């Protein structure tokens, strides 16, 4: 049995895992239905409707969809540019679907990358993301400071020839904490983010500020602390000349002394992980 010293019971973790699976199922379902001419707004609506039909009422953030060079955030200057646009999908174009549904109080935040038809650059990016998933887990288990891990991830990206595109996210975060959210009848969103989750994040930020940690995993000084127990939605995002690829999933951090138990990915049965396993088998 996993230790529960992060404050979550195994039933809780099961709940988080289920909603994460729900998110990836939604991403795969929508990705399979994307065809040339579909716009980002339509893709975002498809995700929203799919999840609503399955009982999702609240969001950490509303679904995003990025197509073409917007997957690498080319020319992004202000946060409003993250919102879905009328950009149409074309054959060979990469796309990223990013959604954060809350279901029965459990939050997930997932990212799914794909492309419409063959795209060798995108394939390479996806394969190279594997090293980042391994690096992050290894260094979190080593209890390195989050800022240092951030810099090591960035260094790996640069040595691979890529640009770090999660730097474009608000506060340049590679990850942020997620938590349980109580079910409320009214759950409005503010600039695409669910107010209930934002309140949780703000509460964490306040506590963290007193205790010297932050719920945002950034390249800045406020992230210069060892990994804080809890659930972290980790989203390394590679960019290469107009093509971007990311994954996002939840990393569980505990205060266990056993390295294996001190940090682990919430679930290993995910599309990107299966893809790498298939690649390894075919080699």
């Amino acid at each position, binding site marked *: 049995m996993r230790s529960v010293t992060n404050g979550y019971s195994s039933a809780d973790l099961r709940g988080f895992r289920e909603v994460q699976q729900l998110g990836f199922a939604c991403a795969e379902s929508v990705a399979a239905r994307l065809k040339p001419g579909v716009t980002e707004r339509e893709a975002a609506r498809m995700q929203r409707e799919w999840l609503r039909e399955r009982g999702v009422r609240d969001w950490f953030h509303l679904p995003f969809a990025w197509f073409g060079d917007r997957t690498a955030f080319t020319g992004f200057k202000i946060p409003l540019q993250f919102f879905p646009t009328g950009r149409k999908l074309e054959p060979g174009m990469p796309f990223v679907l990013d959604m954060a549904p809350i279901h029965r109080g459990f939050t997930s935040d997932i990212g799914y990358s794909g492309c419409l038809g063959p795209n060798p*650059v995108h394939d390479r990016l996806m394969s190279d993301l594997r090293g980042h998933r391994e690096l992050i887990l290894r260094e979190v288990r080593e209890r390195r400071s989050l800022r240092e891990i951030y810099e090591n991830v960035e260094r790996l990206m640069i040595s691979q020839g890529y640009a770090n595109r999660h730097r474009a996210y608000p506060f340049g975060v590679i990850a942020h904490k997620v938590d349980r959210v109580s079910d409320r009848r009214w759950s409005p969103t503010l600039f695409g983010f669910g107010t209930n989750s934002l309140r949780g994040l703000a509460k964490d930020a306040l506590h963290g500020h007193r205790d010297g940690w932050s719920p945002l995993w950034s390249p800045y000084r406020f992230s210069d602390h060892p990994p804080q127990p809890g659930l972290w939605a980790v989203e390394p995002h590679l960019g290469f000349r107009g093509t971007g690829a990311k994954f996002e999933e939840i990393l569980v951090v505990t205060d266990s002394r056993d390295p294996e138990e001190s940090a682990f990915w919430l679930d290993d049965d995910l599309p990107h992980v299966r893809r790498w396993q298939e690649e390894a088998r075919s080699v």
Partner: protein
Amino acid sequence: MKRNRKPSAGDRSGSSGTDHGGNGSDGAHGTGDGTVLEGARERWVSTGGVELCVAELGDPERPTVLLVHGYPDSKEVWSKVARRLQDRFHVVLYDVRGCGRSTAPKPLRGGFTLEKLTDDFLAVAEAVSPDEPVHLVGHDWGSVQGWEFATVRRTEGRIASFTSMSGPSLDHLGHWIKRRTRRPTPRAAGQLLGQGAKSWYVYALHTPVLPELAWKGPLGKRWPRVLELTERVPGDGYPTGSLPTDAAHGAWLYRDNIRARMRRPRTDCYAHVPVQLITPTGDIFLSERLYDDLEMWAPRLTRRTLPAKHWVPRTRPDQLAAWIGEFAAKSDSDVPAREPMARGAHADRFAGQLVLVTGAGSGIGRATAFSFAEAGARVVAVDRDAESAARTADMARLVGAPEAWAETVDVADEQAMEKLAEKVAAEYGTVDVLVNNAGVGISGSFFDTSTEDWRRTLDVNLWGVIHGCRLFGKQMAERGQGGHIVNTASASAYQPSKMLPAYSTSKAAVLMLSECLRAELAGQGIGVTAVCPGFVNTDIARNATFAGTDEHEQKRLRRKSSRLYGIRNYPPEKVAEAILRAVVRNQAVVPVTPEARGARLMSRFTPHTLRAVARIQPPL
């Protein structure tokens, strides 16, 4: 006039031929790249009362490339290109009626209309490739004719592709002029006046008798020298001895066609074949703007630009042969017409060129290699770290380089660089664009900088550039077909700083070296650019030496300074874009980031401000 007479008695006007062995040219015999078409099989094709002299090279079983010359030229203008194509293609050249050894129509007036020239082309194509369509290539008037061939209905099925250089379709030109005279906006009027001034010789050629007298008299005698001086056509036996009569007869090309087509351009002049347009940017006879609306007439158009003057078949045979060969091969393949692989900026200029980048394992070098790869260039990625060089070459192929190689060399190592130069020349070819980018960073006060630090800095930053320019620049100069050298200097080449004495010294030397070399190589069509990036988010700070510090302190300074570079966050991709742009525009000194540009401006107008800045101790 010594001219070779056709075996059967042919009607010949305007020449008193005497039998004379050889190939009809009085130029250099036997020189490798001269004008003689060695090993060419000759035949005569009669059409519409004239006898055309046709030369063939290469295996007739292969696809046929038909080269048509311009004015005042003969088929020998193609000798260098033909030799480079003959291994892969069945190369056919012919003297246009009235030129070279082909006979002239009688009377001359009315004998040079495009309709009759189309008859000639069809007769030659029928004779040399009766079953398969030919790949047509035209230069100057050959290209004007080629446009006619490629746009009239009766040649359909006889042409597989058309490569045009320096010769617009007269019909397209007629429409171009009509559109601009009808709506003379300032821009349109400017374009009209510009081309109008470049066309002075067209008006001159419409004068009766005088052009003929000039060509047969002093102009014909001095023309080779004029070409050498103004057009940089190497004096290697071209033009041939038939020049005065070629030029005199050829005047009728203008008189028979220009006025008729300008007055009533055809309205159905759509190309029914894929067209490759090669535009020499330094052409003094034709404005680049002539081709602005060409997509409308030629739906399957590939654009190429070449920094050269008008006579490209003489001055840039390597590049032409590569583009002609590639385009013909692509048009022949059964794969349905696909977008060209390279779609990046400046693909018209760099497609297929060989680009060598030093320090290509990271930062600006890597981004530059990728940008050239996106433009379709073949890339040699040189770095002292084998793994990162290999990674760059690998990714370069992914983004569009037809070929890419990784080479592990320390640019400071003279012998290794010499070996690299030999290997590159032998295996990949002559470098078209050289980017001397490898460099190391070093910071610290002058008295903390040891002689060893100085040596290493100068070895890499300065000697690396010297070796690159010396070895690859020499290959470029010897080839004599132009090229470009980019040296990465720095904003600290003109911004002094008490923190960077060794680094700034080395970069200032690179800047001045580039300027001197630019002056020296200008005459050979080789451009030299010094790029001064400024603070760019690369690994330079993470790998820099901080003189006079212990290991712990050095580590701290590296981390701190690379964080500052990260906060500045100027992407190396933008420097790469600036480098490609600089090569296309042949710029001398290119400061890139705003701070580099500001410092450059201040170094000219308020140097004392920069001296004050030089005293600041940066907060590290």
